[in-house]
């Protein structure tokens, strides 16, 4: 049985880039449980026993943030949890054949620089970055260590990759929302709050793609079609968030859109607290905001995807050969409790569309 397991595992390992497939994945999990942290497991997992792989990640979140906090049961609901679980499905067990290193760029540009340098010094096998800012910083520091970015709205535009199908260089990753999503967010928030006259767009120009312009075209087009005035609410730091949101509490009736921006994710508690405080309905691009008490969010589903690429890279595939993936599924989350608090009635069309309705 044990021997068979080893043979199976080895065979599987030599097979090259293997996707997540139901049966082998289950078999692998079973096997991993069986092998545990033994040397036999070591060999069986196909990793060279003399070298512990290093998977490094750079996040804009504070290491105190819930999203970076490690728990015993790694859930796939966070990006980090999804990665760890996905890698485990693919035969990579933390502490057995790879080491997981996380650094935070939280705290300003100096912090980012230090964190990047620390990661480079580790000589990791692959570096995962959270967003465009970190990706650019790491990419500036190394042209050899493979980089996988978790979200990048416009990698071609940012100059990270040559094309989505054939990135080239040492970087690949996943795009998030397309530019048309600006109009979609506006439509969705209008359905929840039909009588708005203006819409506030919250973003940090330093961390949002195209300093916010990436989504604004479609948003402004939709606003024009629906007779809503678009008011930009850029923020430079967390202290400005409260003030920026407060401006939309007073009439004329307003709602807000939170753009895809790592800064906003980092400061999501502040934003949601301010939105609740000033009773401003706001739509967010990620479900993280919902966990923090947001009204509704619409965006690409966080599928377990980065684990695939980390696995392939750890097995020797060049990052530049891996296409940049676009999102496949989008999900709409609505918190009816928050909606009631805001005095909103969520219409059928929205409820029919919602993937998850929280009470």
């Amino acid at each position, binding site marked *: 049985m044990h021997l068979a397991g080893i043979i199976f595992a080895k065979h599987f390992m030599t097979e090259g880039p*293997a996707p997540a497939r139901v049966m082998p994945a289950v078999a692998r999990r079973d096997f991993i449980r069986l092998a545990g942290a033994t040397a036999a497991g070591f060999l069986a997992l196909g990793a060279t026993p003399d070298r512990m792989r290093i998977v490094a990640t750079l996040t804009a979140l504070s290491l105190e943030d819930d999203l970076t906090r490690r728990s015993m049961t790694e859930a796939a609901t966070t990006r980090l949890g999804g990665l760890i679980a996905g890698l485990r499905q693919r035969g990579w067990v933390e502490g057995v054949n790879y080491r997981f290193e996380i650094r935070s760029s939280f705290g300003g540009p100096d912090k980012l620089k230090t964190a990047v340098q620390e990661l480079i010094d580790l000589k990791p096998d692959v570096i995962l970055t959270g967003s465009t800012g970190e990706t650019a910083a790491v990419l500036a520091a190394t042209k050899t260590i493979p980089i996988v970015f978790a979200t990048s709205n416009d990698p071609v535009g940012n100059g990270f990759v040559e094309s989505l199908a054939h990135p080239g260089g040492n970087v690949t990753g996943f795009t998030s929302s397309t530019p048309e999503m600006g109009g979609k967010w506006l439509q969705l928030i209008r359905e929840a709050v039909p009588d708005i006259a203006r819409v506030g767009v919250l973003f940090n120009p330093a961390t949002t793609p195209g300093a916010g312009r990436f989504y604004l075209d479609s948003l402004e087009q939709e606003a024009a079609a629906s007779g809503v005035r678009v008011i930009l609410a850029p923020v430079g730091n967390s202290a400005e968030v409260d003030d920026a949101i407060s401006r939309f509490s007073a009439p004329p009736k307003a709602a807000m859109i939170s753009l895809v921006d790592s800064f906003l994710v980092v400061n999501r508690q502040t934003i949601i607290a301010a939105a609740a405080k000033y009773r401003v309905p706001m739509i967010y691009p990620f479900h993280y905001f919902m966990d923090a008490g947001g009204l509704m969010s619409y965006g690409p589903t966080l599928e377990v995807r980065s684990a695939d690429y980390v696995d*392939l890279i750890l097995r020797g595939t060049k990052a530049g050969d891996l*296409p940049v993936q676009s999102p*496949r599924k989008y999900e709409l989350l609505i918190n009816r409790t928050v909606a009631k608090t805001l005095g909103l009635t969520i219409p059928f069309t929205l409820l029919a569309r919602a993937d998850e309705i929280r009470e």
Partner: protein
Amino acid sequence: MNGQVDQGDLRTPPGKLFRKYLYSIVALAFAALAINTAFDVWFSYREQKQLLAATQREQAASAAIQIGQFIGQIENQVRWFARLPPELSTNEDERLNAIRLLRLSPAIAEITELDAQGHEQVRVSRRVADRIGSKADFSGSPAFRGANESRAYYGPVYFFGDTEPFMTLATRAAGQHANVVVAEVNLRFIWDLVAGIRVGNTGKAYVVDRMGVLIAHPDLWPALQRSDLSAHPDVRAALDGVGPPSGGLVKEDFSGQRVLSTYATVPSLGWLVFVELPLSEAYAPIYASIGRSTFLLIVLLAFAALVSLWLSRRMTVPIQMLSQGARRIGSGDLELRLAIRTGDELEALGDQFNRMAAHLRESYATLERKVIERTSELERARDHALAEHDAAERARGVAVAANETKLRFLAVVSHELRTPLNGVMGVLQLLDDGSLSEIQRRHLATAAASGETLIALVDAILEYARLEASTEALETRDFRLDQLIETAADLMRPQAVGKGLSFDLACDGAVGTTVHGDPVRLNRILLNLIGNAIKFTPSGGISVGAAAERHDDHALIHVTVRDTGIGIAADMHERIFEDFVQADDSIARRFGGTGLGLAIARRLTRLMRGELMVESTPGVGSVFTLLVPLRLGARGVAQGVQPPPSRQLRVLLVDDDPVNCEVGEAILRRLGHQPTIARNGAAAVALAGEQPFDVILMDLHMPDMDGVEAATRIRRLPLQPMPRIIVVTADVSRSTSERLATAGITEVVSKPILISALREAIEDEPGQGAPASLLEAGALIDWHFLDDQRNLLGASQIAKLHHLLNETGEKLIADIEAAAAAGDPKQLARSAHQLGSAASALGLIRLFELCREVELTAPSMSSEACRDAARELATLREASMNALDNMLAPAQEGTATR
């Protein structure tokens, strides 16, 4: 198995037969198994391959159906949406059904409803803001046209965001003015389906669209890269509508792995679902099957080898046992019983072997019994023969002893007679000084004749004794045979004529030749034969015939003496050649004679390797035939029978006996020589030094110095010329001859001195008639005699005699010394006689001679001479015994006969 005991004995390394059987059976088994396995594997391989290809086709078809169903489901949903009556949406948001549809089908990213004219009524999207009633004109779009033309339109695959495969699906509701619903389907949702298709353990299925572009692959990467596979030959062939090969296609996949590939077409979409299984896995069952077959083959081979081993052993062991048994029976082990229990012909053969061995055993037993019987018979016969032989030996011993006694007696008698006769004859010869009266002269003549006869008798006895003792040897030289015969005839003729008988001599021409032989002995034989003829023929005549047959290097002399005498009875023909025998006792009385003549003649003839025979009829006459082979002489010898006295010689006569001196001197003067007398050795030496002598006649036994020593001293004198030394002695013993030979004295004249003998001796040139009979100087033992004795008696008898001689010799020497010390000459003589007798038995010739001398001379010896003689005997005995020991020691080891 069988015959444990025998088998243990017979176990040998497997032989050729065993190997032959073993190899044959193994080869047969191997061939059968290998062919069987090969066919089995081959057919199994083919079947498996076909089966595999069929299975894979099934899988491909199944996958194609699944994909078809997936798309078909979406189509159905879109169709359902298209068929909804417009009234359903009037009271509500127009988008609601579309939103429901999106919720129902995640693969649909966007859905648009066009009216019959192609104007957009509703658009609901996941990505962009929904739109209602935009009236945008899509009538020219392929989707609208396609849906109008047929019930369902499947657009080409396109990629959104470079990486996301999408397809446009349009359908049109039934009815005249039915709406057209266009759905953008995200084909990435097929990936989950494709990834879920199980192809073996490691096989893959992937989907290619109608253009050959990869739209779904279990591995993210190739699908995301918008790979165009239309250049691949198999994809190209499939797109061109060529059906998949029935046995599947073997090719290399993206990762370079060799795979077994087949495909199926998705109905209505025209997509191709390729199913690929790595060969390593696909053929694994085949390889496993081959492995099982091979393993089974090896196991069966091993088993076959074991069975072959067992079979070969079973077949060869009995044969080996038979072979071994035959060998052992052949080498004489008849007790062997083969125990072969194979229950077949081999067992029968083994039984035959056993029966054969049993028969042989019985035959041998019978044979052995007979051999034992015969052996015991032979042993008895041998014992008997040995007993007889012993008796014969004893008888022979007695006879030999008797003979010896006779010879000794004869020798003593003749010796004792000689000495006084010497004196008598000498004096008789001297008496005739020319002054005698007629009567005196006649008396003197009678006396002389009687003396001559007596001497002749004594000589004959002595000669016979010597012949009998084998001490006589031939003295050979070249001579004219005819002269010899004629001389003998002339010598005897007067006698015959005087008796009134006729005497004829007839000589063959071949007789006139020179031969090499002993003329003296031959002459003696002839004289004897003629004398006998004259003696025993009262009337008639004598005829002598001589002939010679010449051969290569010798001539066979053939002499016949024929008479008309009294004849000899037939029973006496052989006896007359025995000693002291005459044809009739009365004959002796009538004719006289010793009865030794013929015995001597025959012995001399035999000595010459000739034969003497007689034919006779009593009252008619006798014919004696003499056959003697003689070597042809080198040259003719002109030998005068009576050579005239040549010249006067100065002769020194040395003798201590005054009578002999006187006789000798007289004879010498009669012969016309000039004698000088020396009465002892010293005087002789002195005289020889003072005046020159031509010849010295030396007596051997002298009181002061014996003849040999005197001769030696004379030889040392610086004389010119050196006189010839002739020894005069009555001692004819061999020891004396040897002493003389040692001293270089070759000429001997025997006592009593006869004028003729003396004349012959003096006047003969030296160097002629050297006594060839002398043994080698210093020889103590007569080897020839000893060899003869040994041949006759056998080595053991000789050894016994040797031992006996050793014992008695010591005792006798002691007796002799005692007798000498006591001054008892008689006892000395008796003991010397005994010692001599004993010594003669083993051929100790010098000891024998000395004993006889002592025996003969003892009575006259002084006591001191007796002691000297005793010492001499003791010394000689010791030397002789040593020589005998030395000689017999090697001889006893085996071979030496000389």
